């Protein structure tokens, strides 16, 4: 169990826009250190397994500062697959 782990599950605060039709769009992510990232683009949404950190959810493929990344929503909570071993 001691192998180095490269990703960890980090629950984040998100700001959402919900359309009258019920479509959910995440606008910003607030990371655990307080940094707020704007989501520039929403590319794709599907249900998926979070292969890097475990668990599942509705997976949003988003673009933040030109980088494509995944944002998951699982039972109302949102998380990202963060790089690094901090806090494990």
């Amino acid at each position, binding site marked *: *169990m001691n*192998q180095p*782990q490269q990703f960890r599950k980090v629950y984040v605060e998100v700001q959402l826009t919900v359309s009258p039709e019920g479509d959910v769009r995440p606008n910003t992510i607030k990371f655990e250190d307080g940094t707020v990232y704007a989501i520039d683009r929403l590319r794709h949404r*599907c*249900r*998926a*397994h*979070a*292969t*890097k*950190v*475990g*668990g*599942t959810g509705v997976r949003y493929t988003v673009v933040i500062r030109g980088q494509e990344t995944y944002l998951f929503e699982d*039972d109302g909570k949102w998380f990202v697959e963060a790089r690094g071993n901090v806090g494990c």
Partner: protein
Amino acid sequence: MDRTILHCDMNNFYASVECMLNPKLKGHPVAVGGDVENRHGIILAKNYEAKKFGIQTGEALWQAKQKCRNLIIVPPHYEEYLKYSRLAHSIYEDYTDLIEPYGMDEVWLDITGSTKLFGNGEKVANELRERIKFELGLTISVGVSFCKVFAKLGSDLKKPDAVTVIPKDSFREVIWNLPASDLLGVGRSTDKFLSSHGIHTIGELANAYPDLIQRKLGKNGMMLLAFANGKDRSRVAPQDYEPPMKSVGHGITTVQDLENNAEVWNIILALTQDIGHKLRVYNKNAAGVAIYIRYIQDKQLGGKQWQCQLPVRTHSAAIIAREAYQLFERSYRWEFPIRSVTVRAINLCSQDLPEQLQFFSDAAAVERKEKLETVIEEIRGRFGKYAIQPACLCQDIKMPTDREVELRMPTGMIG
């Protein structure tokens, strides 16, 4: 017209969910153990890595540890299993509404009506397999056939993450050489009888003398004979999705024989703690309770069981314990010391069902108990099962292990 029936079986379900939720476990031998904190539990499920060490479901945790020193044992998370069972179910619903659950991790699907839309059985089976892997991070094995019994057989043939087709025109070549015990409904005693008459394979069963089967095994035997010949016409019976559970039970063989009512009360109380938890997880209320007492009589294990209705349908562990104990007190005559006790909550129904209030029962008191136990449940959820307990269970109560007894019966078939 021929039907297209799928049987989907989630592989090593409990253990797979644990590994999916915690990828650090992947590649290591992992088992889900009941009562881990107490070091008295048993293995409830294991992954393939643990299987390689010969770890078996139902064996004591210490035994399993002896076989595999690096075995990682995790406590069960029934809430998660239920959640993933439901999620899988919602994927199945994209293909048909004829879904019959069989336990938490298996279903039959009748997709006869939707093959024009989605393709043949094998195609749908592979699509399901891929989707469940991608969306839920879990694997299933699927059997595809023209009846439920062969679909089930197929899902057992190749696993994990595989599809097996048993076609109508060639099922004899595919399955007649398999052991008869692979057939759904051939239990250990039936298999023993068949073996003693030279019937070892499904093919031999299919060609057995009907007279012999009828005489010795009766109606069920004739049904098995028909199954072996591919003549299973049982329907895929859709159910509203709640785990198809008729009873939740726990039983225990004590370390030493029990000799008085007080000792039996402790055991009943301990057993019902788990029953209460499970009823909550499955969203069920019990309408009755059953107890099963075993004792040694003339060096032979004897047993008696009793059951009764509860005054109000409930999931309260305290009330079920009290009713079970009163049932015991008025039924057992203490001719022999007791070796084992099983308590089952029976006649389960959804907690969402409206309750018909009885004039003489105190529904408010029951509700108070249930609320109290909601709090207890929350504490246990945060700090572990033994964080809060009835005081009389904090002593040695001659209790060695948890036992899992879940009743599973397919509809319209055996029994």
